[in-house]
């Protein structure tokens, strides 16, 4: 460190400028309107003309959709008689149940509601502050919930495995909620009450075993409790509507991320076999349209299985959509991986972390965080893309909407159902993007 021999430049004298007046606060609705829309003459003119234009564009639509619309009628003829220039909503209203549940029997629809309710309940704890190990909750939801849902939605009596896994899942959910209650009451969680008991026989791992034992007990209890429950078998063919759309998109959204991560890692791998396999999969899938992948899976997948095995269409579609979404996700994830500075790999290596630990704890968390907006964008487009399954004859919400127009009462009613499902899609997609904004903000603070 040296002697400061270089002479410093002469310092200029500091002359303060007079401070500005404090900003006048503009409060309230009127104040804000004034500030942003009518601050000067040009702004006022612009505002007025834009609003007039908007009004002229939207007015006819509103007239059609609301003011001249017919809300109750029993067929399309009545609608047309009542108001020839208005929308005819009764068709949509009558078919609404079909739009949501497809051709699922009416008296069984509580199973769908219950299933989705449980799914939401499963994810709610992720938002609680004091709940720990949220990763485990998410993982359990991903691995166990599908079985529970399948058990509920499909029903039937000859599926022991499904029944047991469903009980395991339900037990997990029950314990989760009891534990959350206990945590907020500042008590010990269920498993810890068993800890001293187990500790007597087996010191090590007593905490873990306590939890597992508790889980097992509740599972067995539940399995006995529900052993006489038989749900009516509802074949996959009659699943449909928004329900089916949510199943397909939900499943593929959940699967796309792990598939995408594996493919992206494979693509960067130093092992040629994995690298080339990944590159081929990604490039092949990305260069054909989803419809082609769907058709191929319906016609080609059966070739790989023995003749005796009957594949159901839903499974084929799920496979196709997952692979398709995974390939796109792989490129998104790869973009995130490329943004990680090499220093992070070196630091991880010098701490001694191996490849998988480095990826799991250091690289992927950062890469995925940076990629949240892109990931959610692909989720949203995937959600909308799933409407394509109507083309291969699954009665998803799109096909149900088009079915309205061939119902003999509502023959030719095309526009209204499409608008109705657009609103439904908007609600889902908009909430997804809002959620991602919130997530981004929350993670940015760290």
């Amino acid at each position: 460190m040296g002697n400061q021999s270089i002479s410093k430049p002469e310092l200029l004298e500091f002359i303060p400028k007079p401070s500005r007046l404090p900003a006048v606060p503009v409060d309230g609705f009127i104040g804000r309107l004034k500030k942003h829309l009518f601050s000067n003459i040009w702004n006022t003119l612009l505002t007025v003309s834009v609003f007039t234009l908007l009004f002229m564009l939207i007015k006819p639509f509103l007239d059609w959709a609301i003011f001249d619309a017919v809300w109750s009628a029993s067929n399309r003829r009545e609608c047309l008689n009542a108001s020839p220039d208005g929308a005819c909503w009764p068709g949509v209203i009558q078919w609404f149940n079909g739009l949501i549940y497809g051709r699922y029997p009416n008296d069984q629809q509580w199973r769908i509601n219950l299933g989705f309710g449980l799914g939401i309940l499963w994810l709610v704890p992720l938002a609680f502050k004091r709940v720990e190990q949220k990763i485990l909750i998410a993982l359990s939801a991903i691995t166990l919930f599908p079985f529970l849902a399948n058990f509920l939605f499909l029903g039937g009596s000859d599926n022991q495995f499904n029944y047991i896994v469903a009980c395991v899942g339900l037990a997990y959910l029950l314990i989760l909620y009891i534990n959350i209650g206990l945590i907020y009451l500042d008590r010990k969680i269920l498993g810890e009450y068993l800890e001293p008991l187990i500790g007597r026989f087996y010191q090590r791992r007593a905490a873990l075993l306590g939890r597992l034992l508790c889980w097992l007990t509740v599972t067995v209890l539940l399995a006995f409790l529900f052993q006489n429950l038989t749900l009516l078998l509802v074949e996959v063919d009659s699943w449909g509507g928004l329900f089916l759309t949510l199943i397909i998109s939900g499943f593929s959204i959940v699967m796309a991320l792990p598939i995408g991560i594996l493919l992206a890692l494979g693509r960067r791998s130093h092992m040629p076999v994995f690298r080339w396999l990944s590159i081929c999969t990604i490039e092949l899938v990305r260069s054909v349209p989803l419809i082609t992948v769907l058709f191929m899976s319906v016609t080609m997948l059966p070739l790989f299985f023995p003749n005796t095995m009957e594949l159901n269409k839903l499974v084929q579609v799920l496979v196709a959509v997952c692979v398709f979404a995974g390939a796109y996700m792989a490129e998104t994830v790869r973009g995130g991986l490329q943004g990680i500075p090499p220093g992070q790999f070196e630091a991880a290596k010098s701490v001694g972390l191996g490849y998988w630990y480095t990826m799991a704890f250091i690289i992927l968390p950062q890469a995925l965080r940076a990629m949240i907006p892109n990931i959610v964008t692909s989720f949203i487009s995937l959600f909308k893309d799933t409407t394509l399954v109507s083309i291969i004859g699954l009665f998803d919400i799109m096909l149900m909407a088009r079915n309205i127009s061939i119902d003999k009462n509502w023959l030719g009613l095309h526009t209204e159902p499409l608008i109705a499902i657009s609103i439904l899609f908007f609600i889902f997609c908009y909430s997804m993007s809002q959620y991602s904004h919130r997530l981004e903000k929350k993670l940015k603070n760290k």
Partner: protein
Amino acid sequence: MSERTAIEISGLNKWFDDFHVLKDISLTILEKEIIVVCGPSGSGKSTLIRCINHLEKHQEGSISIFGEKLENDKKSADIIRTNVGMLFQNFNLFPHLTVLENCTLGPIWLSKIPEVKAIEQSIVLLDRVGIADLAAKYPGQISGGQKQRVAIARALAMEPKIMLFDEPTSALDPEMIKEVLDVMIDLAESGMTMICVTHEMQFAQQVADRVIFMAEGEIVEIGPPEQVLKNPKWDRTSQFLEHILSH
């Protein structure tokens, strides 16, 4: 200083494509020895210690750590993990983890220490480098000097016997250099084997057992600090020293 050999480098040669970065380097470092490496930019100092940490692979010669030769296998990775810690010029903390999590990650997942105990130990280490109160902060919220001290604590958490430093203070403002150097001096006095690439000559004079001067991929001068810094045998060394001392 004990008589056990910590690092043994013999006939080390390394090329980047056809650029000969390290030329026939041989060096024996004893346990608890403090080595300071200096030399002009591009002379291969970083490459040398990155080879010791196996971040770079060498083409000829051998490097042994406590008698175990480094190869490209899992065993070498374990040897390095349990014996060697490294610090970087730009800290390379994990930005998505808190200061404490940065330190406990290795112990929990690699040394399989129970979480509670790992946290206790890391707090002790953070206290030792003087920043226990920052444990809950994220790297983005602390100063450069504090970051480098976290990096030291993170490396120490793996209980290494050898620490490598690659210009740990050259990305820092002058007033933060001292706080990091103090920690390094403390480490040196506690009996750590250290190789420091640094241009802090005061530090070299105070704690180094030997100073190495590198130029163009070769060790051109090696010896106790008084000899290398005060009476260099080689012109290049004295020119370089004059240069860094004058600025």
